[in-house]
């Protein structure tokens, strides 16, 4: 039993730790977040050249075929620097869904295009009910055409490939739509996380390709949502770790009453709590990644444990980091609010703590 990174996982972590802060420092994050879709062509090219866009795809599509613990390692490092734009929805969300689908021409082409850095993708799931389970999916595909509205679609303006979760009659269906297809219109939903943008996507008689239906679609979506949820939980750990460092550094240098404020226990205890929240979230996220990779019997519960805990932990760590900074923490100039915003958006994405606690209840109380 070894609950730590292997040598190759540690190497991956080190190279991510070198790459991301160097190629996307906070000044870049602030610049890129003002662009529509927070999508920067140059940054994307670099991500592709260094293999990040292909990390979880099979080698036959030009990917690296890495496992889910490796995915968690990379996500954590991306979360540390608040990597902006469509990477997460392209690789960890749409990518996970493509991987979970049976192979066919359309799916394969999209996977290859993502690996090579030519295309971005996203998943359109939520509708007006804003439910994270498929019970809220009403939109119908009729005769291969889609009409209706999807909401909260991440990074849609940057994505060439939209994977829309819809219904074919009563059955769930996963469809592939080209963003540029006629009848697709996209509007921004300006929201709290400035580094990852949300969109409303309207479909009017849009021609789509059906990739899977029924149980096959449900299974693929369940798997993809679990994987994306774990990636998000790991990303949140990276964010928590970073804001803990920022707060601790500030507490060591900021002086009041002639002493560094970090000498006061009221401040020390806030910092200690941030560490506890971070490390506990990390244990849960890595276990969930491992359990999903190994198809452990408790994998789905582990995903919900990780997401429910991280959802509240990141927000709480953000509260403490800002509190430690006092007035400076409340300024636009200070980076903390960008993390605080990301924490809230991440808390909501793929189901908040209450959503995942109900999922746990179904698995451990009703079982």
């Amino acid at each position: 039993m070894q609950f730590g990174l292997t040598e190759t996982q540690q190497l991956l972590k080190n190279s991510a730790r070198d790459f991301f802060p160097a190629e996307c420092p906070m000044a870049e994050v602030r610049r890129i977040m003002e662009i529509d879709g927070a999508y920067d062509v140059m940054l994307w090219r670099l991500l592709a050249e260094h293999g990040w866009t292909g990390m979880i795809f099979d080698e036959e599509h030009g990917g690296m075929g890495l496992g889910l613990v490796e995915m968690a390692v990379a996500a954590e490092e991306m979360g540390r620097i608040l990597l902006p734009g469509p990477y997460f929805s392209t690789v960890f969300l749409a990518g996970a869904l493509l991987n979970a689908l049976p192979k066919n021409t359309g799916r394969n082409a999209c996977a290859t295009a993502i690996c090579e850095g030519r295309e971005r993708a996203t998943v359109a799931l939520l509708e007006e009910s804003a439910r994270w389970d498929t019970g809220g999916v009403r939109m119908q595909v009729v005769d291969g055409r889609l009409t209706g509205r999807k909401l909260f679609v991440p990074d849609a303006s940057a994505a060439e490939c939209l994977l829309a979760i819809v219904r074919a009659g009563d059955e769930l269906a996963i469809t592939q739509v080209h963003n540029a297809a006629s009848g697709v219109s996209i509007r921004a939903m300006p929201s709290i996380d400035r580094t990852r943008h949300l969109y409303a996507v309207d479909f009017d008689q849009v021609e789509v390709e059906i990739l899977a239906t029924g149980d096959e679609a449900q299974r693929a979506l369940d798997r993809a949502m679990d994987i994306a949820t774990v990636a998000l939980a790991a990303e949140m750990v990276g964010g928590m770790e970073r804001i803990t460092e920022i707060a601790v550094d500030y507490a060591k240098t900021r002086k009041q009453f002639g002493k560094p404020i970090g000498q006061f226990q009221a401040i020390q205890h806030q910092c200690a709590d941030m560490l506890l929240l971070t490390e506990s979230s990390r244990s849960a996220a890595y276990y969930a990644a491992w359990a999903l990779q190994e198809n452990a019997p408790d994998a789905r519960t582990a995903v919900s444990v990780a997401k429910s805990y991280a959802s509240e932990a990141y927000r709480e760590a953000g509260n403490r980091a800002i509190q430690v900074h006092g007035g400076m923490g409340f300024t636009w100039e200070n980076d903390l609010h960008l993390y605080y915003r990301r924490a809230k958006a991440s808390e909501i994405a793929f189901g908040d703590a209450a959503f995942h606690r109900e999922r746990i209840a179904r698995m451990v109380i009703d079982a």
Partner: protein
Amino acid sequence: MDLNYTAAEQKFRDELRAWLADHAPQDWTGRKAPGRSMEEHFAYLRAWQKRVYEGGWAGISWPRQCGGRGATVIEQVIFTEEMARASAPPLANVLGLALIGPTIIAHGTAAQKERFLTKILSAEEIWCQGFSEPNAGSDLASLLTEARPDGSDFIVNGQKVWTSYGWAADWCELVVRTDPAAPKHKGLTVLLIDMRSPGVEVRPLRQMTGESEFNEVFFRDVRVPAANVLGAVNNGWNVALGTLMHERATLGAGLHIVYSRQFQRLVKLAHSIDRNGAPAARDPVVRQKLAQIYAEIEIMRLNQMRSISRISQSGAPGPEGSIQKIFWSELNQRFQQVAQEVLGPFAQLEKGSEFAFDDGQWAYSYLRARGNTIEAGTSEIQRNIIGHFVLGLPRSY
């Protein structure tokens, strides 16, 4: 990262499980048997430890030359898990096995090891720790119990408090002040003191639960031979700190199994308790709260696994133990509160009420949990330790 157990670890687990199936007592109910006095209860635990010792399973983490098995830290966790899984009684000499024995192994002379270690393993001699004092709790290093040299002996005077197993102990790892002029951390020494020495008086200290787990111990002109100094004179702080690190690292090891069991029991009760005309287990608020406790127990287990993995690579428990201590103690308080809410008015019933669930277990656990954030280093002290030793913030005192 690989959470599967190795073949060697699995073999260790299988052997232990087989041994426990043959040897664990069948009449252990999980708590003190009704009608048994404290002394009879303790004699029972002592006999159980003797059996464990004879089977070669006592002090497994100790080196082979000291009577242990040189078990890895992962095997130690397996041991704790299997003992809990078999519902085996605790070992009588828990402080000797987990804390004081390892400290003697680290700092003791050859003669001290020869004299004490085997009898710790066999529970022939029970140990307690004399650390806290009425005016030295969190600020342990300010303790006042003094040991004055007198020929080749020390004369000890002072008072200790919160001494677990004081009433049952034959020996005590006692921290005393030997140099009142030195800075407070530098003038301390650890003595191994015979609790039957003239001048030692043990009084029960009744807790809010009504039990007396702890004692006050008074020392009046107690004579201790200098041969019983553990480590060097005036180096007692370092010796004691080693014990405290072991305490934080090991105290929580099997707790996740204990909590899990209790959680499963609570879920079972929640299916039969009425809440607004339906089983409590179907109430959305109850479900949220139970799921939160489940998640936290699981995270406690995972934190433990990570910390064990780190120890198995670095060799020694470190200040991360403080995170574990905060986590399990605060979790248990939240857990017991949730249990009270789920069980409703029956939750308050104590042992002796014919209407109580589980013989009053839940009222007891609720009160007992209140002590968790105080014993073995308060949550505040643990947060200070994290702030200073892990995060590198300046010392506040």
